[in-house]
């Protein structure tokens, strides 16, 4: 937290200095300095759309994969994904950098997903993930096919573990959140998160260790 606040303060001072010296690009800075997520969100709050774009591109894929594997349904993932960013956009005026942006983002995502499931009240149907979002296989189609098969096995294995355990696992893997942060996002205590991660990992390991059956 102090790091984030200090960074934001540095940004503000730098902006003031640049404005006083008459620099035209108030937000221009060297490539070696990567703006923190909170700083980008604050800039977007002030009307800088490019800051939002940077922030979005930084987190969009991991958030998408989190929702995709959590819901096990592409349409649901896309709906919730748009919902999440819509809420982030609407909340920009109230945004305060009191926590890491990823904590904020995934808390919103987690809650949006729960609301979506309650609203729609339907069982999530595991659907095969379409290959249209895959990166270009390049010159190794066999390798890509093998990878696609492995991905399907992983998705199937994830589908067999309970929702809460899958949620904890994905927050750890995709969002890179710590146990304490996962506890904050999911609203449970630390020990519960640890236990969910242990069970999830154990079941995935067992499922992935089974011999693969190529069809």
């Amino acid at each position, binding site marked *: 937290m102090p790091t984030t606040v200090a960074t934001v303060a540095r940004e503000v001072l730098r902006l003031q200095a640049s404005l006083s010296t008459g620099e035209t690009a108030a937000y221009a800075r060297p490539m070696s300095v990567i703006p923190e997520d909170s700083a980008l969100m604050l800039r977007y709050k002030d009307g800088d759309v490019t800051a939002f774009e940077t922030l979005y591109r930084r987190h969009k894929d991991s958030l*998408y994969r989190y929702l995709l594997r959590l819901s096990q349904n592409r349409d649901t993932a896309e709906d919730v994904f748009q919902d999440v960013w819509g809420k982030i956009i609407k909340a920009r005026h109230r945004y305060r950098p009191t926590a890491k942006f990823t904590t904020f983002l995934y808390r919103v995502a987690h809650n949006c997903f729960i609301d979506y499931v309650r609203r729609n009240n339907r069982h999530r149907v595991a659907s095969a993930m379409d290959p249209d979002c895959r990166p270009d296989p390049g010159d190794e189609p066999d390798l890509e096919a093998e990878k696609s098969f492995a*991905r399907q096995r992983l998705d199937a294995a994830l589908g067999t573990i309970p929702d809460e355990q899958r949620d904890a696992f994905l927050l750890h893997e995709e969002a890179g959140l710590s146990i304490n942060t996962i506890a904050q996002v999911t609203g449970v205590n630390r020990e519960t998160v640890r236990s969910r991660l242990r069970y999830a990992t154990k079941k995935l*390991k067992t499922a992935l260790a089974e011999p693969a059956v190529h069809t």
Partner: protein
Amino acid sequence: MNQDHDKHEAIDVDPQVSAHYQSLADEETPADLDDAVLREAARAVRADSRKGSFQAWYRPAAVMATVGLTLAIILDLSDPGIFSPAADMSLETALPVQTPADTTADRGPEPAQLLRMQPDLAPAATQPEGAPLEDHTGLSDVFTAEVEREKQRVQEMEAAAGTALKPAPNAAAKFARPRPAIALKPLLPEAPFACSDEQKSDVEEWWQCIATLRQSGQAAAADLELDNFREIFPDFELPE
């Protein structure tokens, strides 16, 4: 610093499973989804800039309109106008202290006057006999006391005479509480009421009119007049 410490603590995830996951999970968002989100973000910023100029004038205008409307309502309510029917009534005219032998001079509000009042307060027509009505004048307590005293006096006279006294002329008018206008039921468009206003101004004459209608075979007209009669004079003891 706390977050860095969290990253290094032992995490209960098998590193092999984690590595396997990381090697496979490489999906990207669809391009149309990206476009939709970025468009919404840009639109929100544009809306902010428009709202800024709009807010510059609409807020003071809204405040002025609210203040003006509030003042208008307050001034309108403070004006007696037609919304305080008790404004022109004095206790003396509303409380006739009468004896059974009283003449028409000291009667209270004439029934015909009541009938001419706005005939759109239907609930009064469905009041059970003797039930207290809505008080629009604020004088119902006073009236009730007066009516009770009058009733007692009549009862005493009956007991003394030993016979059922016919209510004295115009005595029933005393029992007619000032009532809100009732929904009268016209009989025919060309002859809305079978009994004239003049007849209805006197309880005896009105009663006689109803009897005449019934004798002449106009039962429906008689029934309607009787309903209206009962509304105006609920305490009038109808002869057998």
